[in-house]
């Protein structure tokens, strides 16, 4: 499945465009959530959808996350493809009961008779100066739940292509939108049409030979910047953008680490019990004999997300990534 789309300028407009195209192509696609109608969502991702498709296709719901996701389950049971918007990462928690007990399990418990093609859009992560409960990285909770796909775009192209793929998927997809990239401009492959391909493949964003930075979502631009900065030190870093946390593309990741022999996992959610531990373990299991250093993790601190004036100390930035790279302690070429 490949579609050609007019290039949207920002990730936010790419997401909006993806929703509009999906709704126009498939009358069973319904958008629902808090403030998604008249307002167009607090991030304006659903702007114009209610005007274009009517408020039965893009519905302002009562303020109730379990209710939103729970009614979406019933809608999906009756053949619709609901796309649910959770207003912010930490406000999705009231819906976890529905997500974990029903959304993730319905296909399995009915032996395939009742798949639920639901997309749950969650703006996530920090770096936008949000107050408490507006900056959580909740991906580990979702990853721990079998039956869900968990994906997160880092580029404008992927925002379009991956959201189209998520909506088209017959399985529930938790679609994590790195909110600090909403306003990022198209910067990769600007001439090619956005590709819509099934979920599950990681991509190498930058080729390199010295070490692999394994990352996703909001940390992808950080790692690319770190890779540029590292050139001055003579390090040639490869950057892998996972794009999909579940399913996990072991092949692309392992191939990269086998080439470079060293790896650092970078993400902004907490390190303890976070995605990095899983990723490091997978890499170690597959690449042990190729590794010249332990797989390191650069993550957010193991603290509740800090207040906005302190978040810059918490979020893994370029320097922390470079420090980790230095700790890989490779023998110098000389």
């Amino acid at each position: 499945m490949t579609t050609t789309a007019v290039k949207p300028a920002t990730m936010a407009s790419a997401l909006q465009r993806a929703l509009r195209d999906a709704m126009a192509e498939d009358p069973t696609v319904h958008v629902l959530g808090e403030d998604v109608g008249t307002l167009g969502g607090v991030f304006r991702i659903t702007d114009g959808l209610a005007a274009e498709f009517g408020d039965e296709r893009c519905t302002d719901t009562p303020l109730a996350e379990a209710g939103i996701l729970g009614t979406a389950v019933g809608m999906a049971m009756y053949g619709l493809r609901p796309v649910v918007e959770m207003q912010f990462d930490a406000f999705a928690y009231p819906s976890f009961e529905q997500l974990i007990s029903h959304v993730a399990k319905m296909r399995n418990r009915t032996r395939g008779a009742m798949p639920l093609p639901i997309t749950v859009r969650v703006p996530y992560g920090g770096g936008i100066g949000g107050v408490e409960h507006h900056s959580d990285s909740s991906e580990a909770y979702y990853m721990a739940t079998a039956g869900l796909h968990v994906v997160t775009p880092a580029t404008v192209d992927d925002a379009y292509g991956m959201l189209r793929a998520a909506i088209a998927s017959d399985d529930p997809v938790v679609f994590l939108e790195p909110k600090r990239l909403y306003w990022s401009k198209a910067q990769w492959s600007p001439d090619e049409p956005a590709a819509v391909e099934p979920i599950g493949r990681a991509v190498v964003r930058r080729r390199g030979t010295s070490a692999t930075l394994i990352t996703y979502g909001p940390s992808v631009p950080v790692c690319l910047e770190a890779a540029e900065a590292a050139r001055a030190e003579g390090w040639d870093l490869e950057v892998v953008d996972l794009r999909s946390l579940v399913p996990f593309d072991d092949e692309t990741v392992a191939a990269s680490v086998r080439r470079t022999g060293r790896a650092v996992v970078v993400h902004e959610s907490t390190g303890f019990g976070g995605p990095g531990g899983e990723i490091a373990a997978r890499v170690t299991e597959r690449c042990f004999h190729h590794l010249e250093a332990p797989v390191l993790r650069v993550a957010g601190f193991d603290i509740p997300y800090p207040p906005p004036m302190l978040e810059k100390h918490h979020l893994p930035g370029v320097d922390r990534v470079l420090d980790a790279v230095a700790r890989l302690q490779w023998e110098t070429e000389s």
Partner: protein
Amino acid sequence: MKKSSTSVQELPGAAVRRPTPPPAWQPRTDPAPLLPDPEPFRVLGTPAAAGADPALLLRLYTELVRGRRYNTQATALTKQGRLAVYPSSTGQEACEVAAALVLEDRDWLFPSYRDTLAAVARGLDPVQALTLLRGDWHTGYDPHEHRVAPLSTPLATQLPHAVGLAHAARLKGDDVVALALVGDGGTSEGDFHEALNFAAVWRAPVVFLVQNNGFAISVPLAKQSAAPSLAHKAVGYGMPGRLVDGNDAIAVHTVLAEAVDRARRGEGPTLVEAVTYRMDAHTNADDATRYREDAEVQAWRAHDPVKLMERELLERGVLDEDGVRKAAEGAEAMAARLRERMNADPELDPMDLFTHVYAEQTTQLAEQAALLRAELEASADPASGDAGSTGGEAAGERR
């Protein structure tokens, strides 16, 4: 109450400012028609029973008798280890049966974990309906076949599903109604509230039936809710609440039929509270004597839903002793067949563990499936030393 020493007006130099009154507040809905009657609606034993359709009465009766027998048989199967657990609905058959019979084929039933009987009365294969409780798989049937959602174990979480499905059906132009069942304890859950609120705001064609059987496991209603009745809760959402005698099958059917019609006409949801009693323990594993008096149970025996119906039909000549015997025989045959089918060991394919997690198997699951397949093949292969010998020996050899 203590008076404050100075009011705003008395403060020296403060100009007396009267706030402009807000725009006149109007209740959006007249609450009076939404309020339940103080007494549960009853038909049996009243002159109103004479107006009931004899064919429907006989159907209800037959299903009640079968339902009671089903409950006792399923409970017996737990004692034989053929069923992992069974939450009996003995005493509540009138609710279960009326809920199933009031729906058209195209309608949907959303049962809670206690409502196997409603699913069976709707036409589900009794063995398939027990799959969850037997423990061989979670849902043993295709929900679309009889339009029965999977039995829901987390309380009240199925209620928003019913709302969403009914809403979707209406958007598609289908006159489908969803009926959702919940217990008295379940009404305290947040999902109950959210479902009722969504249903009322969307005017979704859905009916909520609360089976108030007095207890949530051991917790009596008085510790569950301080509402005048559970039906009163409807008023706050802007939908009618109805109270009905839950042991009176005709009354439950009548009230539900009105609510279903209302929903089908596009007039929105109704909350029905059926006042009933759970005669058995919470499940076969529960000891009900720890939290309730035998006298209370005995008092409810006089109000047995099956006996009430039987007496009414005999008195009115709709049923005779021969009919009673035939119904009992039919129920007995059903029970015998159920016993026989449940005595066969279910055939399970362990590889099914991986089949339905995702539409397309992930590489991670494919690897895990390969591991299990290898284990299964090894244990089936006598040369491996596992099969045929006792586990202990095999393990010893390996060490």
